[in-house]
């Protein structure tokens, strides 16, 4: 299923790998929806089944689209952020020592990681002919807007290119803004914070394996590292 987003055109010229992965995601989520129809619970899929928009439930195609989005939006994003997180902390010993010594810094560290490594590019269709800095964009064209430059904008953030793990305020838009802002932001924040705290409680010291190829991949939606191999010496104490 990973292949849906991580296979490039060159690796998959006729799109067969990606189509297969897409189908697998639809089947996986469809099976969950079928189950929740019979056994409704207190979960998001049950909530979507109960949802009424303009007085009617979602049809199968709408529900399928939303579930597909939910699957992809929640998976690669957090995985990618974990890659950047551990790359950063492996390379910045001072930051790593500070959060290991004081786990109460983890919430603001997560915010600064989200700002500094804003991985998502959002997509929109233009509703009118416009021109941006001399570049014409036709009505209905699809534009991809990386959020990272906004989150390193010196007009919005003092010393924007500096990583400050206790930065406040930190009005970043790594989760987007407006009506489509990330529905998973609270879960994502929690996942990242738990990962930081639990990892550093057990493994405070580590480094990126020498000569590792992190494999930067600038995707259409998510910018990620393909792998971040870490090395550490297991502690012998209790």
């Amino acid at each position, binding site marked *: 299923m990973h292949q849906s987003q991580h296979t490039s055109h060159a690796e998959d010229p006729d799109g067969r790998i990606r189509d297969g992965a897409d189908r697998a995601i639809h089947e996986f989520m469809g099976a969950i929806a079928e189950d929740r129809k019979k056994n409704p619970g207190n979960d998001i899929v049950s909530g979507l089944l109960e949802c009424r928009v303009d007085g009617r439930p979602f049809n199968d195609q709408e529900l399928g689209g939303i579930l597909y989005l939910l699957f992809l939006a929640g998976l690669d994003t957090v995985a990618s952020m974990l890659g950047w997180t551990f790359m950063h902390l492996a390379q910045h010993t001072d930051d790593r020592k500070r959060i290991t010594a004081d786990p109460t810094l983890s919430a603001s560290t997560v915010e600064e990681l989200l700002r500094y490594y804003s991985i998502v590019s959002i997509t929109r269709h233009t509703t009118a002919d416009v021109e941006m800095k001399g570049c014409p964009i036709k009505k209905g064209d699809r534009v991809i807007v990386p959020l990272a430059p906004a989150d390193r904008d010196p007009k919005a953030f003092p010393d924007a290119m500096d990583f400050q793990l206790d930065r*406040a*305020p*930190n*009005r970043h*838009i790594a*989760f987007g*803004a407006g*009506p489509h*802002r990330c529905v998973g*932001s609270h879960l994502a924040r929690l996942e990242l914070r738990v990962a930081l705290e639990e990892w550093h409680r057990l493994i405070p010291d580590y480094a990126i394996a020498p000569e590792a190829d992190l494999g930067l991949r600038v995707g259409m939606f998510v910018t990620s590292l393909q792998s971040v191999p870490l090395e550490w010496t297991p502690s012998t104490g209790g």
Partner: protein
Amino acid sequence: MKVRVDQSLCTGHARCNAIDPDLFLLDDVGYSSIDTVEVPPGLEDHARQAEANCPEHAISIEVD
């Protein structure tokens, strides 16, 4: 000091609530549920931090 949340701008990032859960109440689905409230003495700084942190610029402060 009063703090105001423009409900039409709030999209539920809950950054205000993370700064002060008692001052910035949320509704059941995570949107701000306050309109204009008097800031209790001593919490002015929380109000200012929330104003500076809201990604939607939904929070404003009125100083009397």
